[in-house]
């Protein structure tokens, strides 16, 4: 059994090595396939981070009346936090902080500053900046705040003004994710079909050999084995090549992408997940190589 397996692997390697040019062609196509699939994964990392940045930019601010007791404002905050998964964060801005921010923002505007100083009291109320997990959940949060006990201390919620923007951003991020997935799927299928057919053509030349092996009395696995090994070699080597090729590409591109999309570092992502990425590439390569060989050989094995 062990001898048989070692013979099959050796024969697979010899087939691979002696058909260098044909193997090279099959491997190039396989490389492209793995390259496309890896790119799609990296692009999806990018779109996810883009979507995340966009979502982080949306929030709803609740402005409280100037006479609202701080305690009740904080209670409202606790109640919102207790809504569970829906709410991502609630930032409390006290009256003092609001005033500081206002002054900082308008310190150039002398008229405004003067009129502010003429006022005895701080004219600004406390506020809560609410971020939801999903853009679609703001509506619910706003409805929650419509209860009478909150209404009497709330001055204004800026949701209505922002509603159009929120809905738009929400639909854009959804569309990016959905179409990204669809495009990836179509491209991946195309790449897989091309690789599959290339290997089938490579194996076509083995048709006569298979017939001879059968007439010499080789069992089916003894014929099939070396071709599967050959297919696996295509996959593994293509995965290694793609892994190496990506390194300089990302090293070059990553800073450029970061300047457009701050907070994303593809090169870092690649380095941090290099083992996982390689395993994925190798798995794609080997399974593609082995299945294509298996399907291609099956027809010739069947012929009597």
């Amino acid at each position: 059994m062990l001898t048989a397996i070692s013979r099959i692997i050796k024969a697979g390697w010899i087939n691979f090595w002696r058909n260098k040019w044909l193997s090279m062609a099959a491997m190039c196509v396989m490389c492209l396939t793995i390259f496309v699939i890896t790119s799609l994964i990296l692009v999806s990392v990018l779109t996810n981070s883009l979507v995340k940045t966009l979502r982080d930019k949306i929030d709803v601010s609740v402005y409280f009346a100037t006479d609202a007791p701080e305690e009740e404002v904080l209670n409202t905050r606790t109640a919102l936090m207790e809504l569970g998964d829906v709410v991502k964060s609630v930032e409390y801005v006290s009256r003092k902080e609001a005033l500081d921010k206002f002054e900082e923002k308008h310190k150039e505007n002398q008229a405004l500053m003067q009129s502010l100083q003429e006022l005895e009291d701080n004219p600004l109320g406390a506020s809560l900046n609410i971020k939801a997990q999903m853009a679609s959940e703001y509506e619910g949060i706003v409805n929650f705040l419509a209860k009478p006990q909150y209404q009497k201390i709330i001055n204004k919620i800026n949701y209505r003004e922002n509603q159009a923007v929120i809905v738009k951003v929400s639909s854009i991020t959804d569309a990016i994710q959905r179409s990204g997935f669809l495009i990836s799927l179509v491209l991946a299928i195309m790449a897989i079909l091309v690789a599959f057919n290339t290997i089938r053509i490579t194996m076509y030349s083995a048709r006569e050999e298979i017939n001879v092996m059968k007439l010499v009395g080789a069992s089916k696995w003894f014929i099939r084995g070396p071709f599967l090994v050959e297919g696996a070699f295509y996959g593994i080597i293509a995965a290694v090549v793609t892994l190496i090729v990506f390194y300089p590409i990302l090293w070059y591109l990553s800073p450029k992408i970061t300047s457009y999309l701050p907070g994303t570092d593809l090169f870092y992502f690649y380095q941090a997940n290099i083992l996982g990425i390689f395993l994925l590439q190798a798995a794609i390569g080997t399974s593609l190589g082995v299945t294509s060989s298996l399907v291609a050989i099956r027809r010739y094995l069947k012929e009597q």
Partner: protein
Amino acid sequence: MIKFENVSKIYPMGCAALENINIHIKSKEFLTIAGPSGAGKSTLLKLLIREQLPSQGRILWHNKDIVDIKNSELVKLRRKMGTVFQDIKLLSNKTAYENVAFAMEVGGRSNIEIMEDVPRILKLVGLAERADHFPAQLSGGEKQRVAIGRALAHRPELLIADEPTGNLDSINAWEIVRLLVKINELGTTVILASHDREIVNTLERRVITIEKGKIIRDDEKGRYIL
């Protein structure tokens, strides 16, 4: 050892390649099947290695009908026969050595046996120095000798040679025939199909002559007479 009983082979479109063939081949015999091209010699041999199935009749190998053999056992049957094909059929991406070794690997022989036997076989067929050459680097006669070597690799009881001299000049052809005789003298049953009158006549062994799918003569120490 081998019996053909009322065997017929009719190809699609009603073309009869063999009709009502009855042959009894004894162990260690050297049998020549003679006849012009298209007489049905190759078909007869293809039925024997079960590359094709007969339309009628039985083919017995040690009293067992090979038509009934399951696919899994077919592999074992073929390892008991060595076949030399008219179109040689070497594995083109394997060297002479590897072609012979392949037949032994297939039969599950150990690496040590292979390392001992292959050089011996290559020496027997006179190709010891050409072991590392690929089929494309060998002449027609040399290729045919590799094919004979491969057929002998698993020590078959029966060696089948279908027009092994068909594409060779007369000197090379004679060397091949002499090799087959030597193999037969070492104890292997040989069936040779040939349309070469000179070779058939010089052999002075049993000759079965086939014409248009029928046996017309079967003589001990026969000649090729039409």
